[in-house]
């Protein structure tokens, strides 16, 4: 069976150790977590998790059913038609060309987040594939640190 990448969003009740329940489920059953993003949903007692995972059809189906089965799970969204974004921050030495870095960031919907006496920090938020390309392209400015956020996604409609 073909292994595919899937983005799953889970809406859960904010309660003691709910995140542990979810990561524990993935660990116990041998499922993959590539990225995981969590934050409370404003004005509610729920949180939303976005999980990027890999598996064959049967595994993905089980992941979804097992997530549903957790008592605090309110909703599991299997994304088909979605907008996905990922964020990355990168730190460059100050002696690299500020304007070239800025131009590159702008090509990827980003910009300069901070400039100190030692470092330039950039921030880019884009589709995961484009974020990858950005990181590749930015290599020539000798980044000293890269921090990627997980994927977040929203249904198109």
């Amino acid at each position: 069976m073909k292994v595919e990448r899937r983005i799953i969003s889970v809406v859960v009740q904010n309660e003691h150790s709910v995140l542990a329940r979810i990561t524990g489920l993935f660990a116990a059953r041998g499922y993959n977590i590539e990225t995981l993003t969590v934050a409370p949903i404003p004005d509610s007692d729920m949180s939303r998790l976005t999980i990027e995972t890999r598996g064959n059809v049967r595994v993905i189906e089980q992941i979804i059913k097992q997530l549903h089965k957790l008592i605090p799970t309110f909703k599991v969204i299997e994304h088909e038609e979605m907008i996905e974004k990922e964020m990355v921050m990168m730190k460059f030495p100050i002696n690299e060309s500020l304007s070239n870095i800025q131009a590159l960031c702008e090509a990827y919907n980003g910009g300069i987040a901070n400039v100190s006496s030692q470092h330039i920090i950039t921030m880019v938020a884009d589709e995961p594939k484009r974020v990858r390309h950005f990181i590749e392209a930015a290599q020539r400015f000798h980044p000293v640190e890269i921090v990627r956020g997980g994927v977040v996604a929203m249904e198109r409609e």
Partner: protein
Amino acid sequence: MEMTGAQMVIEAMKLEGVDTVFGYPGGAIMNVYDELYKQSDFRHILTRHEQAAVHAAEGYARATGKVGVAFVTSGPGFTNAVTGLATAYMDSIPLVVISGQVPITLIGTDAFQEIDATGISRSCTKHNYLVRSAKELPRILKEAFYLASSGRPGPVHIDIPKDVTAELAKFDYPTHVDLPTYRPTTKGNVRQIKKAAEAICSAKRPVFYLGGGIIHSGSADLVREFVNATQIPAVETLMARGTLRHDDPMLLGMVGMHGTYQANMAMSEADLMIALGPRFDDRVTGKLSEFAKHAKIIHVDIDPSSIGKLVDVDYPIVGDLKEVLEVMIPKVKEHVDPDRYQPWRDILKRYNEIHPLKYEDSEKVIKPQWVIERVGELLGEDAVISTDVGQHQMWTAQFYPFSFPRQFVTSGGLGTMGFGFPAAMGVKRARPDKVSVNFTGDGSILMNIQELVTAVESRLPVINIILNNHYLGMVRQWQTFFYEKRYAETDLSFQPDFVRLAEACGGVGYRVETKDEFDEALKDAVEKGVVAMIDVIVDRNENVLPMVPSGGTLYNMMLEFKD
């Protein structure tokens, strides 16, 4: 009304109709025990080990379908209880287990007898709670009983810090539970049920694959009606024993690793499998790629994650089995022609004639299978049968004439040695009208032998029948078959004197080496109503057959073993 957390626990037991709590006290749960001391609404049974407390609660739950309850203290009290939780979890048994915890102010400090109990129980419970304040305790207690017994049942664990048991709060016990995140589907999809009914009526070689869900959902009567109306042959899993009467002509016997030849052949050659509440365990299916290769599959289960987990299903139906069957049976009855399956029934009958379930009896040495059949003859429907784990368990499942659901209490999914005796105590407490028999092994019985004291003290007359082969027999059998008889650490020739052991605890012991002695011992134990230990010396080289070797195919059974 205001009360302490400890009082709330006791009050909730009353409101939930709990008549028995099994448990063991300790520092962190003393406030609860102090309140327990002051009441007389329910009985507390002091086991001599927390594992036994949980197994006893399981035995109680398995024999009745009601929620079993156990109390334990923090730290080692809780960790001792974990095997019980895991055993119940694997077999979907409704339990509420309450543990004490160090005070909230000490949590996270590696305090005396502190352990991350909910962290440990998370993977072996349906749900668990760490209670943060007495205020939330009424809701949590109510939810726990509801979660344990609804949907796919299972154990729920509540960890209560000591300061919460002393804290005062308002006690307003909810009358019902409304969890927006938990709404089990109970009604099956009617279109899917209709399609399944059509498939049944047009199949040539259908077979019922009956699983533990039937027992949990209380739908054995409906299943009996279904089988009778269609005259479709049926196999039972270990957990479904007792669904059909042992003498039902449609019953092909148990399926799987130690199932009958006809049951496993029926699964292999069927063109339609009607799976009612089983979970396609590997001990049933054998090698998955060869499992039911020719069959379309109807699978009814209340747990969606159970459907399609291991095999592809053609007619998935999520719902409570009882509600689904109430819709499905009339639809099938309308069109079904039982004669249609006659050629198929004839084939299966032939299979059974060629390779029936059998053993060779002897007059020189007692065969373990004989003991089980004999108890079946002498006690039959008057007994509820528990087992430990090993060869004796499989022989019991094969040879005992089960007549009603919940007559068989065994650890299926986890296969926990030491389960049988405490479970049989729980059974006796729940069904005082029945003789509570525990078929056990010389290995297993020692894993909770201390419960002799509990059983005698609490007047729970369990009859333990040790099928004593002086081996960890099931492991020895695998060593015989697959490890060229290298009997690594399975020889139990060195044994306690089980008769004196029983007597030392106030029970009655019998040592049995002949059939007559066995009859006398059993009759005596039943008549006297004592906690009994019948140590039956059986043929130590007997093997459980037939057998599908692990990972083998159902249609390729080992029928005999020749040295």
